[in-house]
């Protein structure tokens, strides 16, 4: 079995490598795109199977590859990576199905697809890295390749800025990750991850904490935790649709993987405050993510903020799990780890779906601005159905996957009372309350994000002329199917995740997770429980009742369908519909101190004569992290750089003089010893 897992991983890598090559050679022709997609998809299938086997088998495998300058690169596929590898494969397959119809053949596309397939490979390398060097090299390659992905349309406005923000924050994060690994490597004296994990308990508490906090922040940059999140809304909209899908569906999950790796594998059993800090980051990210999402008019920026929210939910689960573990509630701790992994897969599935469909909407109607869309349900019916599934899933409505994982998260958090410390218990319940607020706002946000573009009348000519012939369907449809399976098939998924958790933490909670087989319970038999499968059946049944009644009792007399009553106006104008902003207006008013909105109104009637005419209303949220956190830092760096400017004259003789002085000082210091 382990050999099969290794072979599949190698097959996936080979597939993606080959796909990159084919893309480079044949990406200028449609056939080349197809071939590349087939190879990439095959690699994805291999990765999916690899992930499933890994989870089911519950044990990893190790590969040694040649010797590098700092030692051999070891690759070890551990069970913790199983959900991530599965997700990687799923995203790869969906994008492979989607890509050929989305991209036009050409040099840019050829380069892009090559980079993308290499990025898949690099991601797999991150997930299967066995030692520090392999991990760091893979991580940095992944980051650089993603940077290139974002730069696909570098000539367009905003792309360079978005990509720069991505790479800049990624590098800061990378620095922290390097430091975290450096601390562990020096303190344990090994570069092998398994070795670090084995000896971590002997490392001093201070070093361990430093390493964990650095890792949390470093991976937080990639995952998009608030306040490290600002690259997401900048980079996502400018990348191609499948690139954004890959970024949100998978790349940010690598940050989650990193946090889980440190928190549960490399330095497990940390003190409670690690968990509380992690949970705090998560809960705040979740609330702020969805609050900013609600104010967003750009569909892809909206989805990016929603990703921040979901990462927040996942990290809350991880942090709460660590806290429970620290207080001896290991079963709930493991349960919450399972929840985090489950939600990771779920979010990867539906967010990829939504980003891919956002690409379809942008292609067919030429805009991502919600206030220029509308009525797409008539023009893009297939997209509408698939998007509806994704939206219901991400809004955490039963019976789809988002509901199951969020329900489980709440069940975990609400058991805060089992912790001996009242303060910590209350903190956990507060996190639960914040996540509940997030859930409520998310329903609002996704009702808006689905309702505004799909329902009503088109708000622009482009939206009115949209059509979906020759638009990709299979990729998003596959993901929609996955959403349904992950929801209704929750018991199966949980069984697999339980094996992953058992292999990672050494505790099997299957008997406190599934009774009897189809009912999910939250690690304690006396708390609560529900069965996603029966719920789905029940929902289907109660939906069938009104349909049957309607069919049976259909009126025999001819009925008349007059137009909607509009008060007798001459014509109904698209501008008489709720806009995206007005839909979120109650939230905006409630959270005004947070948004600090700047409002700009121009209207003909400001002329004091009883005149009426055009009205223009613009509303902007103050980006508080950008303005009050990053700008001051940037200003400070600039000021320091300015201070250093006098010594940078550009004169070669002066620089030689500097060298001379430094050498002199070095000698002096050496001599004094």
């Amino acid at each position, binding site marked *: 079995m382990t050999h099969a897992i290794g072979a599949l991983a190698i097959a996936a890598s080979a597939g993606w490598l080959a796909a990159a090559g084919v893309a480079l050679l044949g990406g200028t022709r449609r056939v080349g795109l197809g071939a590349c997609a087939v190879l990439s998809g095959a690699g994805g299938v291999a990765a999916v199977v690899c992930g499933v086997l890994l989870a089911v088998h519950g044990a990893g495998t190790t590969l040694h590859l040649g010797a590098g300058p700092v030692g051999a690169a070891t690759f070890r596929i551990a069970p913790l990576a199983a959900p991530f590898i599965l997700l990687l494969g799923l995203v790869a397959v969906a994008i492979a199905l989607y890509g050929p119809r989305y991209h036009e053949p050409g040099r840019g596309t050829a380069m892009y697809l090559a980079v993308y397939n290499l990025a898949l490979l690099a991601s797999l390398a991150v997930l299967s890295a066995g030692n520090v060097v392999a991990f760091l090299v893979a991580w940095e390659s992944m980051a650089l390749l993603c940077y290139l992905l974002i730069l696909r349309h570098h000539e367009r406005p905003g792309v360079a800025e978005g990509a720069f923000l991505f790479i800049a924050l990624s590098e800061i994060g990378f620095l922290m990750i390097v430091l975290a690994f450096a601390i562990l490597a020096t303190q344990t004296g090994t570069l092998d991850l398994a070795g670090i994990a084995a000896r971590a308990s002997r490392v001093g508490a201070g070093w361990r904490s430093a390493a964990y906090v650095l890792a949390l922040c470093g991976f937080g940059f990639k995952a998009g935790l608030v306040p490290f999140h600002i690259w997401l809304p900048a980079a996502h909209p400018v990348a191609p649709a499948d690139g954004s899908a890959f970024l949100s569906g998978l790349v940010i999950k690598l940050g989650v993987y990193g946090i889980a790796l440190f928190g549960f594998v490399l330095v497990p059993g940390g003190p409670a405050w690690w968990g509380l800090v992690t949970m705090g980051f998560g809960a705040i990210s979740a609330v702020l993510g969805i609050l900013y999402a609600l104010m967003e008019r750009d569909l892809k920026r909206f989805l990016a903020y929603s990703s921040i929210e979901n990462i927040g939910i996942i990290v809350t689960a991880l942090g709460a799990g660590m806290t429970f573990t620290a207080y001896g509630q290991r079963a709930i701790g493991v349960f919450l780890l399972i929840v985090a992994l489950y939600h990771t897969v779920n979010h990867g599935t539906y967010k990829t779906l939504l980003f891919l469909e956002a690409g379809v909407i942008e292609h067919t109607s030429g805009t991502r601005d919600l206030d220029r869309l509308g009525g797409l349900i008539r023009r893009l019916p297939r997209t509408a159905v698939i998007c509806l599934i994704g939206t219901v899933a991400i809004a955490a409505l039963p019976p789809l996957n988002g509901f199951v994982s969020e329900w489980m998260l709440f069940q975990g958090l609400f058991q805060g009372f089992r912790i001996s410390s009242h303060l910590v218990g209350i903190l956990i319940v507060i996190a639960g309350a914040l996540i509940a607020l997030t859930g409520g706002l998310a329903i609002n946000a996704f009702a808006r994000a689905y309702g505004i573009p799909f329902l009503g009348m088109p708000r622009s000519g482009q939206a009115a002329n949209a059509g979906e012939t020759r638009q990709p369907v299979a990729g998003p449809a596959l993901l929609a199917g996955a959403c349904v399976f992950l929801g209704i098939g929750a018991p199966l998924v949980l069984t697999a995740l339980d094996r992953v958790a058992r292999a990672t933490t050494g505790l099997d909670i299957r008997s406190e997770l599934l009774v009897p087989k189809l009912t999910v319970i939250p690690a304690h038999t006396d708390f609560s429980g529900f069965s996603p499968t029966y719920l789905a059946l029940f929902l289907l049944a109660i939906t069938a009742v009104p349909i049957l009644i309607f069919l049976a009792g259909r009126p025999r007399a001819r009925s*008349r369908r*007059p*137009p909607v*009553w*509009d*008060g*007798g*106006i*001459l014509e109904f104008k698209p501008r008489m519909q709720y806009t995206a902003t007005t839909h979120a207006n109650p939230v905006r008013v409630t959270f005004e101190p947070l948004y600090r909105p700047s409002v700009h109104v121009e209207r003909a009637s400001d002329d004091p004569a009883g005149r009426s005419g055009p009205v223009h209303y613009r509303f902007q949220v103050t980006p508080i992290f950008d303005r009050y956190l990053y700008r001051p830092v940037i200003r400070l760096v600039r000021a320091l750089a300015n201070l250093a400017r006098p010594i940078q004259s550009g004169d070669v003789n002066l620089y030689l003089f500097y060298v001379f002085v430094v050498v002199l000082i070095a000698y002096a210091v050496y001599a004094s010893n």
Partner: protein
Amino acid sequence: MAVDERGLELDTVSTELRRRALRLFGRSLHIRTVDSGSCAVCESEIRLLAAPHYDLHRLGFFFTPAPRHADLLMVTGPAVRAADNLLLKAYDATPDPKAVIAVGACALGGVYPEDSLVHGAIDRVLPVDVFVPGCPPSPLALLQGLLVAVGRLEERVGALSLDLDAGSAG
């Protein structure tokens, strides 16, 4: 038979049928008012129907804001052509069976002759079931119109003779 601008035939044949159906509404009939260019006085009298002195609820009539929920349209004004749209839309939006009451002398052709601004009478635009004359019709006359519309009161005008000498001369 009135024909509207879209060529839709507004059938007057089934008027009797509709009246019989309205009778079935018995003591729960919902009214929507439409103003097609009145001088605001008919509106004032209609508003007073709901006031304590007349209290049309005791007779089972109710005002409703949406024609979708209405059984009966009370139309005032001389059917200004600029208001065709709202008149026809309101009529269209009212579910069958329905009735139209033309309220006031304007609505019956009394004040404004037909010209390029007004139709001059409601029955040139919509099939009217009950006519309530008066400028304005007093709330009592309006109540009578409503009761006549649902067949709960016999109309009196048929038997009325304006020839004051008729009795003695005959």
